[in-house]
């Protein structure tokens, strides 16, 4: 697809050109597309296949406009401004053709809006309205022609609702460099297909759900786990707890009509209790736990490599809290799995702890606990169903639900989230830290880890080195980032918590800790390539990777739409919350979390990376390979794609 999307947007955007759109003069840099020029000036042109994160495609033909001197209208999303021309964004024939396009889409769109997950947030509905569809002159099917793809743990594909905009294809190819979807067939047989039209569980999909957040319709959705959760809530035998991750909390307001960037953390606690959850916990607790375990693992690896000169130690160490990234490595770089931290993700650490320590503390049988997690992520659904995630003796996390699902539950319970009174998290995990919160933004895990490692090693306060403990070099939205952190010549004593692992810090004096950060698998690939080529990332000690562009705050389970503006607003809200923790006297560093001190004192008594930690909080990964065979798919070759020829 790259070929035909080589529009002149590549042209150097220096020279300014003035065009008119609907009579209004607009000056833009040469090479700007007409659509961009229009949007920057509040001229609305309907689009469907266009998404600002993706290369223009020019296929839906809705954005066509009249350009002076052109025989027929042109697609404004691909047409660059190269001369001072007059543009009309609409005309009689354009309005008619837009309506025809939508009517044609509806003529093969088998979907019942009432029961569709995208009802009320569907671009096709909006376009039908905008383009003046009042009738179905070309028909409107009521019978499905293809089966639902329910094979996956995370995503559901309903190709009867697909309008072939190709956004999922471009998302997976361009942002993730994975390419699980392709157009196949031609003419009326054209479909969006997977490899051999298999179900998503039978291809090497990483479940990131980025395609869902860019799909204009209900063709791609998350697997809806809410009925099971309601059933558990209604079951008097069950003790239903929920942990909430930081990203959903800054975004769920969008589902209730708020602007992006309004955190609803405390209102959400109230809403969840009113839905019937018995306890509401903060995933930041286990984020802090992850930092301690993962940070300790890193220190151990470094000690082995630098002091004991053990050449078998895999460095750089990669973060492993993103299940999309982990599955990607299992498929495409199984040989590099030793580089992944063995520490489980915060979701799974919490899961193990709830069904062991928490169950014991409260005298609840773990089999009666239903553990739910609210995540920004669809891949977390896959993660919690991995067979190895049962270290508590039970399924550690029973249901992982997305921001969108929880928003639906709250609406079903008749609440308007922003109007609710705030309330606190439940103990014993109640008090969390700002470090856990910033996990949601790209670079956040790195910053959280560095805050703790720096204090551990130097004995100083991070604030003394970085203003407000904000480690700015690792923040931002750049795809691949590299940063160096200098350890001072004077080091502190080894904290008690990890004295069993390293005797002193002398070996780190004056050293430079090199770190890398990437978000979006396409960027992750660049880092892996660079490492293979012996580039600067090969010298890194620690690299954070998140599968989703922007990090968890634009995860596949987050409110739709996603744009750079929305992502930045959510990131701002996350860093704002971290800052507020500092201002309200709450801890901002993982190791300062009192609940963390308590769990190492009372439960994980051998300390971080000790035996019990290993049993409950660490995991090994599966070499999957890129090609799914009958053996890796369980022998079933499920074909779920569209088959119009049947």
């Amino acid at each position: 697809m790259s070929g035909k999307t080589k529009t002149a947007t590549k042209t150097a955007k220096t020279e300014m050109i003035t065009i008119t759109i609907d009579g209004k003069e607009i000056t833009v840099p040469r090479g700007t597309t007409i659509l961009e020029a229009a949007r920057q000036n509040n001229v609305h042109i309907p689009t469907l296949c266009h998404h600002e994160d993706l290369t223009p495609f020019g296929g839906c033909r809705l954005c066509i406009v009249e350009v002076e001197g052109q025989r027929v209208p042109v697609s404004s999303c691909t047409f660059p401004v190269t001369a001072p021309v007059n543009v009309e964004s609409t005309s009689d024939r354009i309005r008619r053709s837009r309506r025809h396009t939508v009517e044609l889409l509806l003529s093969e769109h088998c979907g019942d809006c009432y029961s569709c997950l995208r009802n009320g947030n569907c671009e096709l509905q909006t376009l039908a309205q905008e383009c003046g569809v009042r009738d179905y002159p070309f028909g409107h099917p009521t019978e499905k022609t293809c089966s639902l793809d329910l094979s996956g743990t995370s995503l559901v594909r309903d190709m009867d609702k697909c309008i072939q905009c190709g956004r999922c294809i471009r998302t997976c190819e361009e942002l993730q460099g994975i390419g699980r979807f392709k157009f196949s067939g031609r003419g009326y047989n054209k479909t969006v297909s997977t490899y051999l039209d298999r179900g998503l569980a039978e291809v090497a999909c990483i479940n990131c759900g980025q395609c869902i957040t860019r799909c204009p319709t209900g063709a791609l959705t998350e697997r809806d786990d809410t009925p099971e959760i309601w059933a558990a809530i209604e079951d008097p035998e069950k003790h239903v707890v929920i942990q909430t991750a930081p990203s959903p909390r800054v975004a769920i307001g969008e589902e209730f009509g708020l602007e992006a960037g309004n955190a609803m953390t405390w209102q959400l606690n109230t809403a969840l209790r009113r839905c019937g959850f018995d306890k509401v916990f903060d995933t930041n607790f286990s984020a802090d736990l992850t930092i301690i375990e993962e940070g300790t693992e890193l220190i151990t690896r470094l000690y082995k490599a630098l002091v004991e000169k053990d050449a078998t130690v895999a460095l750089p160490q990669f973060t492993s809290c993103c299940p999309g990234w982990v599955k990607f490595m299992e498929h495409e770089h199984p040989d590099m799995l030793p580089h992944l931290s063995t520490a489980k993700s915060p979701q799974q650490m919490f899961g193990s702890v709830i069904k062991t320590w928490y169950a014991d503390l409260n005298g609840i049988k773990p089999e009666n606990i239903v553990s739910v997690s609210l995540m920004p992520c669809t891949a977390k659904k896959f993660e919690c169903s991995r067979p190895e995630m049962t270290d508590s003796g039970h399924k550690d996390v029973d249901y992982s639900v997305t921001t969108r699902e929880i928003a639906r539950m709250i609406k079903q319970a008749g609440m308007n989230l922003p109007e609710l009174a705030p309330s606190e998290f439940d103990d014993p995990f109640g008090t969390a830290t700002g470090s856990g919160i910033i996990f949601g933004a790209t670079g956040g895990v790195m910053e959280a880890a560095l805050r703790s490692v720096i204090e551990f090693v130097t004995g100083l306060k991070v604030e003394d080195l970085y203003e407000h403990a904000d480690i700015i070099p690792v923040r931002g939205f750049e795809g691949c980032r590299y940063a160096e952190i200098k350890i001072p010549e004077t080091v502190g004593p080894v904290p008690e918590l990890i004295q069993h692992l390293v005797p002193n810090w002398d070996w780190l004096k004056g050293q430079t800790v090199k770190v890398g950060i990437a978000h979006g698998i396409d960027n992750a690939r660049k880092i892996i390539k660079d490492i293979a080529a012996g580039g600067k990332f090969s010298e890194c000690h620690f690299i954070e990777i998140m599968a989703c562009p922007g990090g968890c705050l634009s995860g596949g389970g987050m409110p739709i739409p996603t744009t750079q503006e929305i992502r930045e607003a959510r990131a701002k809200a996350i860093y704002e919350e971290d800052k507020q923790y500092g201002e309200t006297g709450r801890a901002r560093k993982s190791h300062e979390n009192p609940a963390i001190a308590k769990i190492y004192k009372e439960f994980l008594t051998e300390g971080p990376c000790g035996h019990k930690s290993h049993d409950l909080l660490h995991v090994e990964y599966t070499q999957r390979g890129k090609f799914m065979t009958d053996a890796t798919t369980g022998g079933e070759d499920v074909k779920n794609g569209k088959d119009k020829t049947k």
Partner: protein
Amino acid sequence: MTIRNTITFASIPTDKGLKAALEKEPKSVINDVIESGLRGCGGAGFPTGIKWKFAAKAEGAQKTVICNADEGEPGTFKDRVILAEWPDLVFEGMTIAAYAIGASSGIVYLRAEYAYMRKMLEECLEKRRQAGMLGAKIAGKEDFSFDIHIHMGSGAYVCGEESALIESLEGKRGEPRNRPPFPVEIGYENAPTIVNNVESLAWVSAIFANGSKWFKGAGTKESPGYKLMSISGDVKLPGVYEFPFGTTLSTILEAAGGEDAKAVAVGGASGTLVPPNNFACKICFEDVPTGGSIIVFGKNRNLLDVAENFQEFFADESCGQCTICRLGNVKLLEGIRLMKQGQCTDQHLEDLCSLGASMQIASKCGLGQTSPNVFLSVVKHFRDEIPRHPVAENDDQKTEKAKSSNLFQSVVQLFRTDADTAKNNSGTNKKGVSA
């Protein structure tokens, strides 16, 4: 297929044109082509010299000359005849183009069905290499090297569209690209590329052999020179003919023995359907243009059958990226089938014509833009051919009807008031469109 009259190419000595061109500066080669007024013979009629001028001006190291030998338009076979009879002229034309724009490699994109010619063409290329007219230092010119290889198509009509052809050459789905940028700026492997039809390239050789004035002297003002036509259908003498541009359709029909035609598809499936009262029209870009396909339909032909056949072709051959082309063609096809049964309401017919007009303006490439032409011509010129009442069924149709019960509705029900019924018929199932 028989050659029916005198074709200029038969009298052009091999390499005469190329040698003449290589005597000149590339710039003046381009000027000569512009002077001749030659317009592309693949259908769009873009002035060949201007195309070359753009490509010569564009920056890029690895420029490419592509010969479009995909000849996919229903009813054309003149490129096949040229390749079979005068391959040297085509390769010469490519070499002249390469010299003019500074290209070092050439590709012939050969229609899958023409695979049988490949061996012969490869031999011809090899002979040219041996003779020093292809490969390094052509005709002894120190700084001009150019070679040609053959790439097989795979049978998709849309891959004849130049930018889809390039995608296909690059190993991707054959889908037309967005323009701009045009292939002359960013084409094959991102380098400036010219794509020319087989016939255009052969005329280039002829023009350098006989002079651009000779070419310009024939034809009309806007369409100079000569054109090969593939004439088929209900005529006594089907085959390839050469006429100067501006020849009337009736002259052509007379030559081929098809004067009593009911209609003529000029330009194949994507052209126009000319009714007898317009047989006096001239074949040229000012009047009725053609890439070379002339299909004649005799008195006994059912034009709805013709339209159905063409529409099926487009519904199948659309690359599918534009909604309006991918689905519009299906709707027109379903509409024609309803029309054949006398089941298409006036309102639905109006909707379909309006849809056709949208397809002409909103599609990305020529395929979609021209795909409703024949349908619209039938409705405009041959309205009488459309049954106004349900057609009596034969036994086969009765069985068909029993299978899809909602297909048959009484005329009364079908008037606009119950539009949904019509919609059900026309729109509901994707399975119904099996070709």
